[in-house]
């Protein structure tokens, strides 16, 4: 074993990317595992970021590319974790690489195959709002820049093989087992969105002019399903009134989660600003429960949205949303809790629900494979919430990002660097032992 000590990073979102870059930069071998065909994670789906209003993919894509090009980072995309054995300094990891049916080294990502593919299915990257082909790249900035065949929907017409001038499409590919031996592991599996359709009174999935926040991010994104034009999902009409509803499923004891997702107040403000920038004539309402603007520059950001951009903040969790069956416009019934008036806001063209962000369901399986503990909400436990905030319940395994606790992008990046630093200790120790032993 003459190679340098290595580390496995699970999850290719911003936290995983940051941790990989940190450790790669320190000269350790990094394996970055991602289950989808591209790294980038949730941040890649966002249109902009708060409170700086940066274009999200514009600041993320360079980091994704850096990962791809980094001599010390090996990307394992479209992979599944099968087994982890061993202990700190010597974890034996079994990974299954699913076949893309496209040769990664040959594919140029020109997209000629997708152009001719006859099958269209909802694009997961666009939260199912837009369509993709059965051979596809989830987003234009995908890393690695390589097409993937979705075998579940493929009809084996093999048109893509004909169209590919690089000869990259290869239907003979088989699933590949990858065995690794790593000294440390970092978990950064991120979050999922709570499905608000069980909150019946809001009518999500029944009323067509209701989107969730992540769907809305894709909806207004220039690379999204409608090219960033602000339109009503039901009929493509031009909206005049848009409302955001906070705490949908979060901070509850019946549905969803008991915790605060910590980012919704701010991203709703950001999305409200995006709307006002797109179309200043649109009235934007944010129905909030408690406005949690706790970070640096956050309150100022909210003040600006309210004072300079005319976003209307209403302290209320609306009771119900009803749809006019003829116009498909929505009426929101709410109690303006500051004035104690029961009101209704009618002719709303689009309602954006800000659902609870929840740890991934797959964390349970992962925790089982690895043998570490989750808390009641499904977040990974740490050994001490104050003094060891990245150490999982097993030595040599570290956690960072939303999968540890609710947090925003800067906090995820900070924690990722922290986890990388803690992992580096373990890796350095492994290196010393190796040098000493050889």
């Amino acid at each position, binding site marked *: 074993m003459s190679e340098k000590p290595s580390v496995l990073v699970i999850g290719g979102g911003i936290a995983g990317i940051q941790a990989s870059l940190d450790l790669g930069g320190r000269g350790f071998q990094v394996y970055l595992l991602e289950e989808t065909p591209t790294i980038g994670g949730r941040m890649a789906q966002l249109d902009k970021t708060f409170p700086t209003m940066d274009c999200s993919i514009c600041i993320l894509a360079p980091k994704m590319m850096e990962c791809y090009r980094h001599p010390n980072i090996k990307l394992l995309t479209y992979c599944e974790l099968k087994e982890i054995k061993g202990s700190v300094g010597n974890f034996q990891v079994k990974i299954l690489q699913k076949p893309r049916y496209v040769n990664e080294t040959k594919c140029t990502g020109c997209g000629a195959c997708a152009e001719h593919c006859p099958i269209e299915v909802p694009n997961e990257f666009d939260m199912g709002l837009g369509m993709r082909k059965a051979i596809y790249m989830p987003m234009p900035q995908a890393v690695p820049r390589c097409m993937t065949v979705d075998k579940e929907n493929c009809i084996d017409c093999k048109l893509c093989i004909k169209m590919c001038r690089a000869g990259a499409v290869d239907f003979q590919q088989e699933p590949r087992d990858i065995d690794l031996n790593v000294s440390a592991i970092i978990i950064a599996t991120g979050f999922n969105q709570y499905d608000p359709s069980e909150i*019946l*009174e809001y009518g999500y999935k029944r009323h067509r002019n209701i989107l969730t926040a992540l769907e809305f991010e894709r909806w207004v994104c220039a690379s999204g399903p409608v090219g960033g034009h602000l339109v009503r999902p039901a009929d493509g009409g031009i909206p005049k009134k848009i409302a955001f509803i906070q*705490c949908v*499923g979060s*901070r*509850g*004891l*019946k*549905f*969803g989660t008991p915790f605060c997702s910590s980012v919704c107040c701010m991203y709703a403000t950001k999305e409200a600003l995006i709307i006002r920038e797109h179309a200043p004539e649109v009235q934007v309402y944010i129905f909030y*429960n*408690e406005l949690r603007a706790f970070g640096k520059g956050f309150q100022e950001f909210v003040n600006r949205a309210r004072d300079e951009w005319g976003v209307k903040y209403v*302290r*209320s*969790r*609306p*009771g*119900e949303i*009803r749809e006019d069956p003829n116009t498909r416009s929505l009426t929101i*019934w*709410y*109690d*303006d*809790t500051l004035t*104690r*008036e*029961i009101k209704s806001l009618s002719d709303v063209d689009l309602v954006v629900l800000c659902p609870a962000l929840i740890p991934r369901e797959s964390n349970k399986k992962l925790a089982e494979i690895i043998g570490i503990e989750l808390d009641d909400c499904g977040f990974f436990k740490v050994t001490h919430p104050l003094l060891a905030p990245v150490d999982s319940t097993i030595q040599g395994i570290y956690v960072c990002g939303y999968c540890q606790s609710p947090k925003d992008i800067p906090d995820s990046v900070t924690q990722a660097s922290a986890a990388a630093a803690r992992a580096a200790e373990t890796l350095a120790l492994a290196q010393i032992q190796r040098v000493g032993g050889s």
Partner: protein
Amino acid sequence: MSENEPRIVGFLCNWCGYAGADLAGTSRLSYPTNIRIIRVMCSGRVEPAFILNAFENGADGVLVAGCHPGDCHYRSGNQHAEKRIEKTKKVLDLLGIGSDRLRLEWISAAEGEKFASVIKDFTEKLRGKGPSPLRKGVEAATVQHNAIESIHDILKRTKALYCQECGKCSSSCPITRLDPSYSPRLAVEKALLGLEDAVLTDKGLWSCLTCYLCRQRCPLDIEYDELIRTCRAKSVVKGITGNCAHEGVLLSLSRLMAREETIQNRLYWVPQEVEIAKTGEVLYFVGCLPYFNVVFDDIGVENIEIAQSMLRVLNAAGIKPVLLENERCCGHDLSFSGDLGSFEKLAKMNLTAIKKSGVSKVVTTCPECYRTLKLDYAEYFGKPKFEVLHASEFLTDLIAYGKIKFNGRIDKKVSYQDPCRLGRHMGVYDPPRKVITSIPGVELVEMERNREDALCCGVSAWMNCSRHSKQMQIERLTEAKGTTADLLVTACPKCQIHLNCTMSEKLPVKKEDVAIETCDLSVLVARAMNLTPNSVEMTKK
């Protein structure tokens, strides 16, 4: 006056009856001193509730005296009185008090002698009958339940301490939309601020329909219905009660049934061809239908048909149901109007009777009985040994086992009103729909607000039937009409009563916009099985 002397309460109309009594006095006619007179402006003012109240408080007889037909100073008040007394007599028979303890007499201002002779005669008759059975328990019945749980404990138990004051409840509440002075949030907030008096004296406490819509939607799962129920009990201890519909006659009935001395005569309606049993597997808990049938005979609902249909359906499915001869009100309305003492008495008596019958299943056609038997009895007295099923659940099972054969067809578009107690309180949404859709020919069309979102019929526990209730009922009926359904099926006799009551009244909307035929689920099933005779024969026992 000795203890055994009959005590008569007399409601005398100001213009005739009272003037007649006056004349008797000034003419120095002697008559027994057994009567206590209450002057009312018109005999038509005498509510059945007044009469029942007199009996509740130990009267042996009640006399109502008004002007001769055609002489009423308000044209038709006495005719109104006649109808009401007729109704009340039937109720007294049902209760086992006896209709002969109530008398209506026409006594004009010139008939002093008639007044004296009526009193003489009535007193004699009552002497012959002996004291009212209810005389004994008056003292015991007035002992109040000590609702000792503190407001803080109630808040803790109902999870109201978690309230985030988000306003989801208040913007959902159908009452708050019409009357902003009440809101579930305000009630909770006042309680949280420790303003106990403000909570317990708040009129709004009695406006709540306990329809569960706020609790359904509350993200913190605060048990508003329970909060309201227990706060009402505390409020009653303070001597405050809410406005009752029909002056509280229905609550009076429940209280009378809570008296051990009451031996009812309530099975008059059982059709002759129907077979019932004293012991067996399945008990049919009839609820207050025999009483409703009398009290609400003027709004076009034949309530007892529900019970009759249920019996016929059960017979057709090969079941001989047990009926309790002296079944009492389940106590739901008393429990939700703050009279926990009477509720507990009713519960104990019903539980004993059900236990004695040895049944393993209790079926109800009323969702309030269903909730009370299944949930509240278990809460107060531990899990009972029998299973409680709503008719819709039991019928679904019978249909699934092929015990029910639909010989007929009902070619109708049908919509379904979810009763609050059945739906949101107990989570029974699918069984009634399954029953409806299994009937040949029926097409089920849902209202816009259905299942968890359904709108309450506007009144609960016979409290606060107000203009807001009417507005809600009009809204609901309009919604039902909007589905283009021909028939609105309910699974709760009370929903049917409330909706029909509105339809029978003068309304600010066009009749055709709200008028829709209504029908109870079990009646619908009986019709589809060709079990309902065209004329329901009432066999009096």
